[in-house]
């Protein structure tokens, strides 16, 4: 109820999905790093940003769903955007025994952590604003 009335009208759902994707990506990177010496291992990657970008693009067409049987047309609802893991078709051998490039994984890990921290900080801001609206107290100027 409160979620539908307030939370879904803020940036909250986008940030929530971003944090979900970052968590999945952190697991994928941890898995790649753990298997850096495993012969024949295939790297796992996570896609999310492109789908999110498409879902947020207001210039794209979006079909209204007035019936349960309707198909989703065009732009997706943010609730239906999900991060997905996949194995890229990459046949190089940067580590000598598999396609995990440890430097790339470390860079992706740092990037992913910053993305997560950003989403977390922004989400905290969303909650502060909701709180201030409920309590009818203006936010202190920062």
């Amino acid at each position, binding site marked *: 109820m409160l979620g539908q009335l307030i939370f879904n009208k803020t940036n909250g759902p986008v940030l929530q999905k971003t*944090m979900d994707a*970052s*968590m999945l990506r*952190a*697991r*994928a*990177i*941890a*898995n790649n*790093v*753990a*298997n*850096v*010496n*495993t*012969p024949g*291992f295939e790297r*796992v990657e996570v896609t999310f940003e492109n789908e999110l970008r498409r879902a947020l693009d207001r210039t794209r067409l979006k079909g209204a769903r007035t019936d349960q049987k309707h*198909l989703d*047309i065009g732009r997706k609802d943010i609730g239906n955007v999900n991060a*997905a*893991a*996949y*194995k890229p078709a990459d046949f190089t051998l940067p580590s000598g025994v598999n396609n995990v490039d*440890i430097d790339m*994984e*470390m860079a992706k*890990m*740092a990037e*992913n*952590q910053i993305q*997560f*921290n950003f989403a*977390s900080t922004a*989400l*905290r801001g969303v*909650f502060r604003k909701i709180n201030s609206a409920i309590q009818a107290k203006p936010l202190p100027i920062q």
Partner: protein
Amino acid sequence: MPLSGIFSGLNISASGMSAMRMHQNAISSNLANAETTRTDDGGPYRRQFVVLSAQSDDRDVRILNREPALYGEQTNENHLPIPPRDFPRDERFFGNGVRVAEIREDSRPPRLVYDPSHPDADEKGYVAMPNINVVKEMTDMITATRAYEANATAFTSMKNMLMTAIQTM
């Protein structure tokens, strides 16, 4: 070992650290026994090495490879793209870390060193020494150490993310 919940990322890195530690132990054993000519099984010491294997996670297979809600066939170019029934999906999609499948003994023959004064020398004066190349062991050790550090970094990163998530409240 079923791994689930928000802490599974930590367990993935921990499995990597554990495997690298075991690798390190095997290397230490090889270096300590680089000149050992007598073992319980008879003959010289044989080089030991770990065989690593990726662990798969049944839980993630279900989450990541769930069935599409709808199948469709595209018989006209104006049709909307809907996944066909035989849409390829990988069965073993996501793992949860690494494990040491086994510790093997190197089957390569022992190194023969001419030393007639050695008590284990044969009638021609040759001693069967362990099949250990110290330089290779040293490079393996550096690899294992670096991989351990990488896993430790991944662990710290995951831990910081979880702490940040908790502090959002």
